[in-house]
């Protein structure tokens, strides 16, 4: 089982962000830390059988917490759960909130992976995004983490930003590659409802790159990172050999996970559930708001929607092991049809998205979800 801990605090909200996070006073942060400790204890009693293969402190900005917070949480996790020897422990960090002291505390507590939100090498673009740091500060933080001893660092970059050009993005990629992180997540900007960017997009869509331009940036990412020795293992994720994010990879591979903290999601057995995102309720211990029991069909759909995000795609074996050969043939019909359209390609034991299919993956997913409907009609 994987463990996710959500830290919903930021110095300030970025203009594109629709994650659950907000600026926070110290007292509330303390109370929140205690609530997390409370939930770690409760969960460890409930899931005492489970071995923990990865832990991810995500946000928000976990690195905003006082230096001792994460070590305290980690030691409580170790007290209550059994961790595998090679357990991956990641902390999401944002430049501008990191100090050597914090990094050392993380390192000493057994954090073995840092995920850093660098986003762009262009300070103008960083300002547009509403980030609190310059690229130089990000680089400094990166070197600091190296100095402390972290040998597994991931860097986030963003493309298709307003004002971004293929040239400026290429420079970002080059400068990130020069840092030589073990892992790079390269995301297309998603304009989400309720964000500043959404209003901006409504007002002035021409300020944002065209579909053609963002395709170009995506292909550039693939090209440049592959050239630099990274392997693309998911739609937006690239890693040096052996350095994939085990935690994230689990999400696409049907590994159960338990989410702790405000608004955190869990997937255990055939249930997906989510904690409340009302801070007051959460602090009082009223946790759950959403609970979905997945049907057989839901799980089949997720098998494809998530599994095909991985570059290696899905295998027939994995499907048949969980479901049945009969139903596989129903989905396979759709996959064959998509293969003819050039969106999907055969692998040794199954299928994966083709190069072209990656960028049109929703088309493939929707068709697979439709296949399920035919399936229902048959049954």
């Amino acid at each position: 089982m994987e463990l996710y801990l959500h830290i919903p605090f930021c110095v300030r909200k970025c203009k594109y962000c629709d994650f659950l996070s907000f600026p926070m006073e110290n007292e509330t942060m303390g109370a929140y830390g205690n609530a997390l400790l409370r939930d770690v204890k409760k969960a460890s009693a409930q899931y005492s059988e489970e071995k923990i293969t990865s832990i991810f402190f995500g946000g928000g900005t976990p690195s905003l917490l006082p230096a001792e917070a994460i070590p305290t949480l980690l030691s409580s996790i170790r007290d209550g759960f059994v961790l595998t020897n090679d357990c991956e422990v990641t902390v999401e960090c944002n430049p501008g909130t990191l100090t050597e002291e914090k990094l050392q505390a993380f390192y000493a507590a057994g954090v073995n992976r840092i995920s850093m939100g660098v986003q762009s090498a262009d300070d103008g673009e960083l300002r547009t995004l509403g980030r609190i740091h310059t690229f130089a500060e990000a680089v400094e933080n990166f070197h600091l983490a190296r100095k402390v001893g972290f040998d597994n660092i991931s860097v986030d970059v963003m493309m298709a930003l307003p004002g971004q050009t293929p040239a400026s993005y290429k420079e970002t990629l080059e400068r990130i590659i020069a840092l030589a992180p073990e892992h790079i997540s390269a995301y297309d900007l998603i304009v989400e409802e309720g964000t500043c960017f959404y209003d901006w997009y409504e007002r002035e869509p021409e300020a944002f790159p065209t579909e053609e331009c963002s395709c170009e940036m995506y292909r550039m990412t693939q090209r440049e990172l592959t050239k630099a020795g990274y392997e693309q293992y998911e739609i937006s994720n690239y890693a040096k050999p052996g350095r994939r994010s085990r935690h994230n990879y689990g999400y696409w591979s049907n590994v159960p996970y338990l989410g702790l903290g405000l608004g955190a999601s869990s997937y255990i057995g055939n249930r997906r559930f989510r904690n409340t995102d009302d801070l007051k309720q959460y602090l009082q211990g009223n946790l759950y708001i959403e609970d979905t029991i997945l049907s057989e069909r839901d799980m089949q759909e997720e098998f494809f929607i998530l599994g095909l995000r991985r570059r290696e795609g899905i295998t027939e074996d994995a499907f048949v092991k969980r479901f049945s050969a009969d139903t596989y043939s129903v989905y396979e019909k759709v996959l064959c049809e998509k293969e003819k359209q050039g969106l999907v390609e055969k692998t040794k034991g199954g299928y994966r998205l083709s190069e072209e299919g990656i960028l049109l993956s929703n088309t493939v997913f929707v068709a697979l979800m439709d296949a399920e409907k035919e399936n229902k009609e048959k049954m």
Partner: protein
Amino acid sequence: MAEFDRSKIRNFCIIAHIDHGKSTLADRIIEKTGLLTSREMQAQVLDNMDLERERGITIKAQTVRTVYKAKNGEEYVFNLIDTPGHVDFNYEVSRSLAACEGAVLVVDAAQGIEAQTLANVYLALDHNLEIMPVLNKIDLPSADPERVMNEIEDVIGLEAHDAPRISAKSGLNVDEVLEQIIEKIPAPGGDARNPLQALIFDSVYDPYKGVIIFCRIMEGSISTETRIRMMATGAEADVVEIGTFGPGKFLPCNELSAGMVGYITASLKNVKETQVGDTVTDARRPAPEALEGYKQVHPMVYCGMYPADGAKYPDLRDALEKLQLNDAALQFEPETSIALGFGFRCGFLGLLHLEIIQERLEREYDLDLVTTAPSVIYHVYKTDGTMLEVTNPSNLPDPSEIEHMEEPIVGAEIMVTTEFVGAIMKLCQERRGVYLGMEYMEETRALLKYDLPLNEIIYDFFDALKSRSKGYASFDYDLKGYQVSELVKLDILINREEVDALSFIVHAETAYERGRRMCERLKDEIPRQLFEIPIQAAIGSKIIARETVKAMRKDVLAKCYGGDITRKKKLLEKQKEGKKRMRQVGNVEIPQKAFMSVLKLDNED
């Protein structure tokens, strides 16, 4: 009740231009005559379909009987027959009028006479009704009762200086209307001893009672013992129940006699047997002849209606059958389209009738529909000397077999304030109108007369008229006849395949413009797909316009982690639902609304 003195009965209707306050006045009359307290009144009692309330128009004729105690101390029975308020239902209106002795003409004291006011007045005069003008909305700041009074006298030639000046909304001076109804509108004639002649002015289908005939007894009487016969359709049945109308309910009685208005049920299953305008007589003692004025109504406008979900075809058929029980003017027959699958070609009295049926199918029967462009009935004269009536462009014979074609022409009257005369004349010219003349109502308003091809007004003429006159123009029309016209079939090709549901028949001169605009509109409506899609307009094999939908290059969710999965899946669900509302034509997916959006192409510049 049968012994009620005929001289104490008043049968009347209220006529008005749309929005001049007809239904509100009807409500006030019902309220004032004590049938309902105002608390029991829902606004506009008589408009009882949701759709009627929302649109503020009357679609079906409604009738109510109330008892009014006049200032002279006598009690009078008022039968108020509320008539449909739209040109599409002119025939129903004329039958309702024939059931009355008088009409209360409501004129908005601010807006004055409108095109429909005139059309209704002429119709009422045709039936020799006593017309009693009423000036409504005098509480509006813009009301000018003096001016409107003069207008009524000058334009219509009705004495109007003692017309009650009322506010139907507040109830101001409505008593005066009631008193004048007694004074001015004559009591009904007829003789209860004559053979039965009852005029059907409406009929509705009720799942429990079967067909309910709304009628006015012109001669003779009817009782629960009577066996009735419809003189035009020949249908016969034994009476089950007769009675009069309370607001929102039926009040059974034992006998209805000459002069009275009421209803009859007789276990009849279909309103087709009880057509509006037909005469009900006593099968055992029939009247020598039917009442005048019966005619069968024929649809003027046709379109294809298809279920969005092909599996709902039987549901659509059932729904149309049910609506037809209540609406003898609605026609439909099965048809198939390559693009849309199985559906029905439906005939309507006019565009409003079409819209009403479409909305009722969608709301009351929960059906998602795709409708094709409305068409009129074209007369196609073939080289072999035969004539073909075509309502579906797909059925047009090969051009080599066509000698010539004719299209229906209407006589249109448009009333508009003088500042917009230019804009409206331009519109009529664009729509191939032939100018017949213009009359000034007063200094600021004019009545424009045009002959217009019906196929030019069934798309968006009414919208264009409203937008180009800032809402001030009003419009009425009458079918005049057929005229030779140079018509062509315009086809739309999507990804080089002809989409039959988008074809239509158009005048040769406007074909290029229409083709170009349709391509532009379709380009906006059809989402990008995996490949480039050419959209072409063609006449025969000649392409006259082209647009291109570029290929979709990117449709991907950049992020999908543990907390996103449920939400991202919902996004995909939504996309899937959207796909369901698409029609697969060849290998192109066309959204259903694309089929309808091309109907509204007026561009004002």
